């Protein structure tokens, strides 16, 4: 295949896409949905990994105390925590500190909405010397009398991974099914093109065109279908990522989201390549049956 032949092949492929309008539309739409889903999962995984990285290296344990822990016992608690092996630093965050932090963030109405009662427990922030000590330290603190519960990054990460494992295994099957659908629809579209151009294909054989020369236009058409689907998916992702990330930021403030500029270019590239690949697979399938490859 010489580059010069692209001058004819590419416009021909676009012409075919037009001629098979509805079929092309169906193939592109399925492709877009498949790739959009891939993109969403991709973004989810990237962000979970990103969050894991951030949270895992976090050496802080939040220790929440029961309401009964006051006065003498409270100061003793601080000494106990400081005395534990591997503890670097202990900071007290009192009920009042917590409340004023929340009021600062969400406004005075929150306090009113809570009926003027402060629901936050007293809390200590314990810093470990190294991230490796966090697990052991946290479980030790949890057993101390007067401790309501402990919260720390790695625990959140483990929960996140459990969640994404479930999502991933369901999502994988959905994606595989959709991808098969997309491949089949591309195959059907290409079959229509082969049929519409059967006279031309026959003539090409008669005048001595190579098999590959004959196949290329169909393969390119398949790749185009896939790439158009991918472009739609990418556009939807670009528009929604910012919005979703803003929403998550305001809803669960602590969850770190990777920046769009860092994530999307690579993802877009993968999606477009993936779309092209699926499209090529689809057209190769129909060429095997209809052009005696």
């Amino acid at each position, binding site marked *: 295949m010489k580059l*010069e032949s692209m001058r004819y092949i590419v416009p021909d492929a676009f012409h075919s896409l037009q001629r098979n309008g509805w079929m092309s539309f169906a193939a592109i739409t399925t492709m877009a949905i498949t790739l959009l889903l891939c993109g969403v999962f991709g973004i989810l995984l990237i962000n979970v990994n990103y969050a894991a990285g951030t949270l895992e290296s976090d050496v802080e344990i939040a220790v929440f105390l029961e309401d009964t822990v006051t006065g003498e016992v409270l100061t003793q608690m601080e000494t106990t925590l400081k005395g534990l092996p591997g503890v670097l630093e202990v900071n007290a965050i009192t009920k009042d500190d917590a409340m004023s932090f929340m009021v600062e963030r969400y406004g005075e109405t929150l306090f009113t909405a809570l009926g003027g009662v402060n629901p936050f427990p007293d809390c200590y922030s314990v810093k470990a010397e190294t991230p490796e000590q966090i697990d052991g330290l946290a479980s030790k603190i949890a057993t101390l009398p007067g401790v309501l519960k402990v919260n720390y990054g790695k625990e959140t990460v483990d929960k996140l991974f459990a969640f994404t494992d479930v999502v991933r295994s369901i999502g994988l099957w959905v994606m595989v099914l959709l991808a098969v659908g997309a491949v089949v629809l591309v195959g059907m579209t290409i079959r229509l093109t082969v049929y519409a151009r059967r*006279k031309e294909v026959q*003539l090409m*054989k008669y*005048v*001595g065109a190579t*098999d590959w020369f004959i196949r290329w236009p169909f393969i390119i058409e398949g790749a185009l279908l896939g790439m158009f689907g991918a472009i739609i998916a990418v556009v939807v992702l670009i528009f929604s990522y910012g919005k979703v990330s803003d929403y998550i930021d305001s809803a669960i403030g602590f969850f770190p989201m990777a920046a769009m500029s860092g994530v999307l270019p690579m993802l877009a590239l993968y999606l477009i390549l993936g779309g092209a690949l699926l499209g090529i697979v689809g057209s190769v399938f129909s060429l095997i049956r209809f052009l005696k490859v």
Partner: protein
Amino acid sequence: MIIQMVNVDRIYKKQNVTALKGINLAIDKGEFVFLTGASGAGKSTMIRLLFREELATSGQVIVAGRSLSRLSAKETVIFRRNVGMVFQDSRLLEDKTVEENVAFAMRVIERPKKEIDKKVPEILERVGLRDRMKHFPHQLSGGEKQRVAVARAIINDPIILFADEPTGNLDPDTSEELMELLREINDSGTTIIMATHDRNLVDTMQKRVLVLEKGRLISDRIGGWSL
């Protein structure tokens, strides 16, 4: 000798039809050969074998020293580039102009654009359709369409031109004109094998005539149609 057939049979097994039986013949380079016989005699089948669209059930079909049944896919492609074919229905692409239809044969074997741009007008001049370059097939008469088909078949300078009833859809005068064109092409050195059952054409041309009857070669002589 450019074409040789040795004990060639062609049997369509499924339909249990013996289209050709025990064909032996030799054709020299530069000859003009008519292939005649009643409808169903096996003319088209013979052309398909020579064009390697089909393979002989038994026997050898040898073109330019090569046994066609032994050609690989790659060699078949090369073979096709060295022979031309014209059908009764001209098989032009309706959505392409005359110029594009002729260029098609060069384009799909990836000849350089420069060469295509130079050669297409030349060949259209030669078949007398220079002023029809931008027309579409539906704007042409039957005779003109066949000229375009001939132009497409010879643009890559084939050593052999096959034609299966090229005048089948044409009136006598137009047929004569097409025959004149084929004669010119033959005079310039291209071997021509033409299937026809047009008695008058064969008689006026006074060339070699092969007669098929029910798949057998029953006559091979120079001159007119009659036995």
